[in-house]
């Protein structure tokens, strides 16, 4: 089991950041790497158990299932059902915490998963930097004050 952890500070109130990321179908709106997304089975995007089916800009298709969503804790988690990444038992959590000093947001995004040992470091880098940090960087730009 590998754990990847990435965290950042976004210069916007937690409510504003949460408004962007709580929508499980909104990846194309705030990440730089998702081309299009839909929720399967016509479920609401904040219905626990719903599946988002999205296509990356590089063509890969990923299906992820919403496992938890907490407006109280600003936190959601999800698992990967299918992907071209070669990971199994992948569960990720995105969590926001208000930074009262400056009314900013501490954002954490982490994942645990299994994969072939030879691919561990490459996957850890791609997920930690290419997905999580890239997502934070684009939120920083989107929510710039």
């Amino acid at each position, binding site marked *: 089991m590998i754990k990847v952890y990435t965290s950042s500070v976004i210069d916007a109130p937690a409510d504003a950041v949460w408004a962007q990321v709580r929508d499980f179908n909104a990846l194309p709106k705030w990440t730089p790497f998702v081309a299009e997304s839909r929720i399967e089975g016509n479920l609401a995007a904040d219905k626990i158990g719903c599946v988002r089916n999205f296509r990356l800009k590089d063509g890969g298709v990923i299906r992820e299932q919403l496992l938890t969503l907490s407006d109280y804790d600003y936190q959601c988690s999800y698992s990967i059902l299918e992907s071209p990444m070669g990971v199994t038992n992948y569960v990720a959590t995105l969590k926001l915490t208000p930074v009262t*000093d400056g009314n900013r947001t501490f954002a954490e995004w982490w994942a645990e998963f299994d994969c072939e040992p030879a691919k561990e470091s490459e996957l850890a880098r791609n997920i930690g930097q290419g997905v999580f940090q890239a997502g934070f960087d684009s939120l920083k730009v989107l929510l710039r004050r």
Partner: protein
Amino acid sequence: MIRVTRSAVIDAPIARVWEVLRDFNSHWAWHPAVGESKIENGEAPDQVGCVRNFFLKDGNHIREQLLALSDRDYVSTYCILDATLPMKHYVATVQLKHVTDGDRTFWHWQSTFDVPRGREQEFEALVGKGVYEGGFEGLRTFLRRGAVAAPAPVRSPASQLAQVVVATAFGGPDVLRYESVAVMAPGPNEVRIRQTAVGVNYIDVYVRKGLYRMIQPPAAIGMEAAGVVLDVGDGVAHLLAGDRVAYACPPPGAYATARTMPADQVVVLPDDVSDETAAAVMLKGMTAECLLHRTHRVRPGQALLVHAAAGGVGLLLCQWAKALGAKVIGTVSSEDKARLARENGCEFPLVTRDYRFAREVKNLTQGRGADVIYDGLGREAAAENLEALAFTGHWVSYGQASGPLDALPDLGAKSGTLSRPVLFHYTAERALLQEIAWNVFKALRSQTIRVELRHRYPLAAAAEAHRELEARRTTGSVVLLA
């Protein structure tokens, strides 16, 4: 029930922030609202269950107990036991998290508690602003202290020249030579320091003579110095370039204008301790701290015999022991030194140049003898020390200026205890080193101990400084300026 939450981002690696916050008694050093503080019953400040007993600078008095500590999760939880403030059921948690983006630290501080009805807002502000937000700013300042001139993250040159005092052989002061030596860039877990003041200690004489086989000549000597961090190697989290720092530890090599050394024994200096003071007090002050609080825990009313009471460690022992309420008897080699010892808390300085003192010690203690003997003399004073020791007394042999003790003294004659403390064993763990060093800085701040620096020499005159020290012509601390 009120809940108060404050959080902030500290621009420092999490290990550096946690090193400070995990110490339950560090708050006096960084929190602007906290005054005098101590851990009750001499417990370690990372002992779960320990109680910190402190005053706020506004005069309020608080006792807080550490309930949980996790180095894995960077969490510390504590509660108020008693306070002169009307707060009940106060439980607070400090949690740090790593901000991977920029290697910074997120600090979350939260508490719940009850106050009298109608005073909720007042206490929300007191705790949230006064304690938590004030604490964030205080810790930022604390971590920045001395780092004003921090050079930009430009790497210093790989190696640079320094002036170093080298023992070219084992022997007298004449074996010391002043030479140029290349100082390498720091490797993993190392730090390179530009040194400004170097402490001279008797151990340097032992090393130079070869009594303590800590070097193989030609090699630099010296155990203690202060200066500014030039750069750090990989894996060093508690120091930054530009930090004012000091140390007192092996390996020898402190007599230098710059050096590269293991980082774990280097501590950051508070603003109110100058480089000269630090170089004068790190080794001797930490020695005194350990001798009086750890080797033996001195209690009020105990009779102490402090040899070389006007020497570097001796003066500090006298000052600190007096503040602890002990009765301090000292030995010195001249009337001038007796006067100096008396001014520094030694109630009964005995002038002797032939190691005869037992009879007078007994006279001064109604025949009982000394409860504790702090012995830096060794062989020549051994018989008199045994004679001067009270029944069940504690003989602390921490130096051997007149030669090593030949054999184990006949402790059975007194049911005595003999200790042979070596400072570097007490400070081997970083957390303890930090605690001991901070206790010294705290004692300086409260003027429990004072450093009177009468002997300053240029680094190049190290041999002369050794001659004076060995001729017993110095009092207090001797410092070389680099």
